[in-house]
């Protein structure tokens, strides 16, 4: 896990005041300020849990009386049995997702750059009648998180980061079905044993309908590319960016090239690309041109992306139809 400083260079503002316009007439001032403290926060009684994570173990607290298991051990005294002292229990490295997990695409300021990510609650002490769930980061080896993967009841495998500091992000869970059989019993299973870098692209079904839809999508995208040459707003959106995006669809492949403020569409899949996106239905791209959104298609699971970097390009592409509409009649 990267260490580095807590706050980067961007987390600052120049000293001073500035004028600001409101809804009512009149002159108003605002001043730059901050309200923050640093912490060297003790984990206190929770240290046992985080020390165990460092050693590749998942600890819970079990009550001898009511048998409930707390995962993580949020307290060592059972709140339902007159605060009787609880015992340490070494938990399995497998669990079940307790409810379908939301996927965050608009993170808060501290997590910009990590989206999209999934987090949810994992039922680990499945043998116990009463148990709490572990709040968890969820990852997949099949690309970015998308609907249909982290659904209620899916079996999960606990994975440990190779370098651990004693923090909840030392661990995460992946669907058991994505873990090779020989690694499923491994305790602890380290992240380096799984391949997150080059996820295999999903297979697409070829069809005549998709080929026709691709024809329409290509025509729409070419029309868009033509309008970009007349749209200062769109050129500004693309300004300074250089990407070669390959796309595989059920109707065949194509390539989107962004360079020098222009968008170019090629009706074949280029040999050298930054990323290859996959959409079984090429109409995803027609809808994008018609003021839709590729980000939404990705969020809905209709457009597959190999990486966060690819996801980061989508908002720029999403701006184009609107910019063009405002500039080109």
């Amino acid at each position: 896990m990267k260490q580095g400083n807590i706050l980067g260079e961007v987390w600052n503002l120049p000293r001073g005041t500035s004028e600001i316009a409101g809804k009512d007439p009149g002159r108003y001032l605002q001043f730059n300020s901050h309200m923050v403290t640093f912490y060297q926060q003790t984990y206190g009684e929770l240290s046992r849990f985080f020390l165990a994570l460092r050693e590749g173990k998942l600890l819970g607290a079990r009550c001898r009386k009511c048998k409930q298991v707390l995962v993580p051990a949020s307290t060592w005294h059972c709140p339902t049995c007159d605060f009787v002292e609880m015992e340490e229990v070494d938990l399995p490295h497998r669990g079940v997702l307790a409810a379908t997990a939301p996927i965050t695409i608009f993170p808060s300021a501290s997590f910009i750059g990590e989206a999209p990510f999934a987090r949810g609650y994992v039922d680990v002490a499945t043998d116990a009648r009463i148990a709490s769930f572990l709040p968890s980061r969820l990852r997949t080896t099949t690309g970015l998180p998308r609907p249909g993967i982290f659904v209620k009841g899916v079996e999960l495998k606990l994975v440990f980061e190779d370098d651990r500091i004693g923090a909840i992000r030392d661990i995460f869970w992946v669907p058991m079905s994505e873990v090779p059989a020989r690694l499923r019993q491994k305790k602890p299973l380290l992240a380096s044993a799984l391949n997150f870098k080059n996820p295999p692209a999903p297979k697409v079904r070829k069809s005549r309908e998709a080929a026709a839809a691709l024809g329409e999508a290509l025509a729409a995208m070419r029309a868009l590319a033509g309008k970009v040459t007349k749209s200062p707003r769109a050129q500004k959106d693309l300004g300074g960016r250089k990407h070669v995006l390959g796309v595989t669809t059920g109707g065949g492949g194509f390539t989107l090239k962004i360079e020098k403020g222009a968008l170019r569409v090629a009706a074949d899949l280029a040999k050298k690309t930054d990323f290859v996106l996959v959409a079984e239905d090429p109409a995803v791209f027609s809808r994008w041109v018609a003021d839709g959104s590729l980000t939404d298609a990705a969020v809905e699971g209709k457009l597959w992306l190999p990486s966060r970097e690819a996801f980061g390009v989508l908002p720029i592409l999403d701006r184009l139809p609107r910019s063009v509409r405002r500039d080109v009649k």
Partner: protein
Amino acid sequence: MNRVAIVGAGITDCRGRWVEATYWDLFQQATRRTLADAQVKAAEVDSVVYGIYNDIFEHQAIPESALTGILGMAEKPGTRVTSGGATGFYAMRTAIMEVASGLSDLVLCVGGEKATDCYDPQSKTATPMVIDTIAKSWDPFFEYPLGATASDSYMQMCMGYDDRYPGDIGDGLVRAKIIEMLCRQGNKNPFGQRRDETVTAEQVLASRWIIAPFLRLLEACMYTEGAAGILFASEKKAREISERTGVPPIWVKGVGAANESYQVGRGGSHKPLHSIVSDRVAAERAYAMAGVRPSDIPLVELHDAFVAQLMVTLGEMGFVPLGKTRKLVDDGVMADIRQLGDAGRPAKGQVLINPSGGLIFGGHFVGGSNMFSMWSARREMLRREIPLALIHGTGAINAVFGGAIVVEFEGGVR
């Protein structure tokens, strides 16, 4: 307990940002209007309860201390309440207890928020920092480091609900129609933040996802800066003020509250993922105390973070069956403001839901949002002669805080 009445209410304009005012002035505006509404001078007030959610937003620890003198509350008891999104509810509950106990005869309850002075230098906008500040409602050990946001937290409840009752909240068109209705209502709120906006179901369905598949951009509540005040009085004082103003008192009939465990899990005292138990228990307690059933209540002002959560909450509170909350639209349970006009009452079997526009169209200044709801409920009861109303508040991560108040207008038509 002694009888408690609402004898005055006032709110500020609801704005995305108040450049023209600090939170000091917002609280004073709300106080001025509340006292003027009841024709009461500050000196006549016995004590004050402040609803302020978050010190980081106000940029001052003990923010209420700066308000005492400005609001004319010097040398009176002052209590600050902070309970996440349910801050307004819990502040009102505290004010009600003060009167009900006989400790005070006239209590000002005033709540508000200054949220969007926050600024994120990275994106050069306020929003990611506002979200981050609210995300600090999660603990620093387990939950916050995972990157959870407030949206995720309410959405997790909706997803758990959908796992148990598939197909109910998942129909985007049903949710979009509710938005359309809330928008029309918000257009009629003279203080509402989005009173000049028109949002159609079609626009909702075309708006971008925040979290698929239950939350699009046009389905979410706002961040608002503003404040609201409610004046609570003992029976004797209420009669006296009512004589002065000519406005009948609104009586507090039932108050219910329930906070679920922070720890999510299975069995025991754990918070379940498929249900907002806090909403259900709080409402049931308020009904029991008031001696009413949900079917007796034609008006609800509820805390709607998102439309999907509005549906679940109305299910938990018994206005529609759990798993079949889409009856709100399908069976016309949600009254149509176009048919009601400005003075009409919902038909039998119908409920007027968030005539203020709710937190999605009206306003959501966290510390006073539930007072905003109470302000609206009183206004609608008086002008439509509605006998009973329910005011709901929810808050904290995973909606674990819940509150409900049943109020009565004796002059209402049953």
